[in-house]
């Protein structure tokens, strides 16, 4: 175990944990409102730990859907973890079984921040970053599920803008060079363009695939201007 990386990850993950706590409290409220018992809501956060997927599943139930479509919506929402896992997988020692287990803590923010400039991941940093968010995610769900009647309308406080706000902050970290800016623009445009026509989650996978332009020979060398942004 790399204690320094783990601690750094915990520290860097702390502000995200605060946002996770607030967001998961509103998940607890939403889940109990569609018939989850408070413990069932906490259980789901503990075993799933994927915010957008959990909201997607509960959203389907809220609109009158059954279990099958709810699970399908959640799975599509999570589909981006497939390419993200392929990216992360090469930094994980120890064969398929240990790799599969070490892949579980991946969430968007920890994945993005644990990636080094060359595409290698600091796995203990990622584990720490995710661990503090996990504790907050489960704890916040409990708060919302058991005591949520006072969080009547999370949207009034702009809480639905919390995570997009964090992703904005993360994005500025990722715009390291001109190619980064180009694929970011492409990903954002493609995502928004697909949004009205595909189930939620699909636009995110499509956006991740924009990165395949990196296979073009002209893209294999980073463009100039990379060092100054470091």
């Amino acid at each position: 175990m790399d204690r320094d990386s783990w601690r750094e990850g915990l520290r860097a993950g702390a502000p995200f944990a605060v946002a996770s706590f607030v967001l998961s409290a509103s998940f607890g409220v939403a889940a109990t409102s569609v018939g989850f018992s408070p413990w069932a809501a906490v259980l789901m956060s503990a075993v799933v730990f994927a915010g957008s997927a959990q909201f997607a599943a509960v959203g389907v139930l809220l609109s009158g859907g059954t279990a099958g479509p709810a699970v399908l919506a959640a799975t599509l929402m999570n589909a981006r973890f497939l390419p993200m896992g392929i990216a992360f997988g090469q930094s994980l020692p120890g064969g398929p079984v240990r790799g599969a287990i070490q892949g579980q803590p991946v969430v968007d923010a920890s994945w993005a921040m644990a990636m080094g400039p060359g595409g290698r991941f600091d796995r203990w940093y990622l584990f720490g970053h995710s661990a503090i968010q996990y504790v907050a995610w489960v704890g916040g769900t409990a708060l919302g599920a058991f005591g949520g009647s006072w969080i009547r309308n999370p949207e009034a406080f702009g809480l639905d803008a919390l995570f997009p706000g964090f992703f904005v902050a993360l994005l500025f970290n990722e715009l390291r060079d001109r190619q980064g800016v180009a694929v970011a623009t492409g990903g954002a445009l493609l995502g928004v363009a697909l949004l009205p026509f595909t189930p939620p989650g699909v636009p995110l996978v499509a956006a991740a695939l924009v990165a395949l332009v990196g296979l073009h020979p002209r893209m294999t060398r980073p463009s100039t201007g990379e060092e100054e942004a470091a």
Partner: protein
Amino acid sequence: MTPTIALVIAGTALTTFAVKAAGPALLGGRELPPPMQRVVVLMAPALIAALVAVNAFGDEDRLHVGADTVGVAAAAVVMAFTKRILLTVLTAAGVTALLRLLAG
């Protein structure tokens, strides 16, 4: 717990596990070929930008420009000028809440 809710929890947990496990299990610590390294590096800006845009301009499965769109845009301005993460996030939520309050 109703059967529906038990199924949703178990099903979502299983598919989430499988999706997150697939990449690392397939690779198992082996290096991707060099051209794919560039793809890995570029995946982060592409995906994070889409997360911002889809959240800011999307409402379920339709395009929607609202208070949160303005809040996220304001956050981008604050991040560009200050590079402070918490201030950026608070701007996103604060501006969104303020606009909703004003809109009644």
